[in-house]
């Protein structure tokens, strides 16, 4: 293994501890937002925060998915070093995630459809 290969393989060793701390703070903030969103929409705070509840509650699932996707992205990019590592690793993970999402979404749609939860009134 040449010195060049070594440098390329260990390129991420220069990630500073400070960067890791930053990411940790962001992750905790996002988690706190998730819990807060739940409490405002349905939990302890849903009675106190009337207007906010009315504004957020219809978008609960969407906002929650966006928040957790952001957490996912931060961990994968910085803690798992996908940002610095060679691109093929991102393709391997990304393609698997695409197929995994297809499976989840397709199963939800198919079962909702066969149980008549939506598209049941399509005329044909």
């Amino acid at each position, binding site marked *: 293994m040449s010195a060049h290969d070594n440098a390329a393989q260990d390129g991420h060793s220069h990630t500073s501890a400070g960067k890791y701390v930053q990411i*940790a703070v962001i992750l905790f903030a996002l988690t706190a937002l998730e819990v807060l969103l739940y409490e405002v929409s349905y939990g302890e705070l849903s009675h106190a925060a009337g207007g906010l509840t009315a504004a957020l509650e219809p978008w609960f699932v969407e906002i929650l998915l966006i928040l957790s996707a952001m957490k996912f992205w931060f961990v994968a990019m910085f803690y798992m070093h996908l940002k610095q590592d060679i691109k093929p690793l991102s393709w391997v993970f990304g393609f698997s995630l695409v197929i995994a999402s297809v499976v989840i979404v397709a*199963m939800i749609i198919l079962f909702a459809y066969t149980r008549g939860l939506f598209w049941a009134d399509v005329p044909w």
Partner: protein
Amino acid sequence: MSSTLAHDDAHAAHHTSLPVDNRKLAIWTFIGSECLFFATLISTYLIYKDTHAKGPGPKDIFEVPLVTAGTAVLLFSSFFVVMALNGAQEGNRKKLLGWLGATIMCGLFFLGMQVYEFNHFYHLGLGYTTNLFGTSFYTLTGFHGTHVAIGTLWLMTVFKDALKGRMPPAKALNLELAALYWHFVDVVWIIIFPVVYLMSLRS
């Protein structure tokens, strides 16, 4: 193939086509495969989460504080293990052992929380086969817990190596592989926490 390399170059066996170690590529491949494992379990849970004619449903038993604590512990551990990796790469044994030990504690704490949670739910009337919500919930989170246990065991062996002074910076990859797996287990929980717990609690 017009020219050839000297075949007594012992290092030639380590030539790789991509600038990445075989083992790192392999663990990523395995993680990709695991995505489908959890996708299937999560799909099953989502299909069955409202199937609880008998026994309690999600709203009867889930408690946000407890699971938030577990989530926080896993997030902490992800942070700890990258700090340990940092120590390993710098050759700072003390830093490596300290952060890695903290990571392992987090793993054990999470497992303890899960045992407590399962036991608690069982006493609230949700056995493994009480209803399909319960079966799919226990199967999904149980397999996640199994992954946490395997990850903890793996980190422990790295810890043991580090204790015996067998983790020089050149071997930091040994920890990085375990860390990648550990982070993956964490991101799965990042999905499970909102999708399985918070969304099932909607009124």
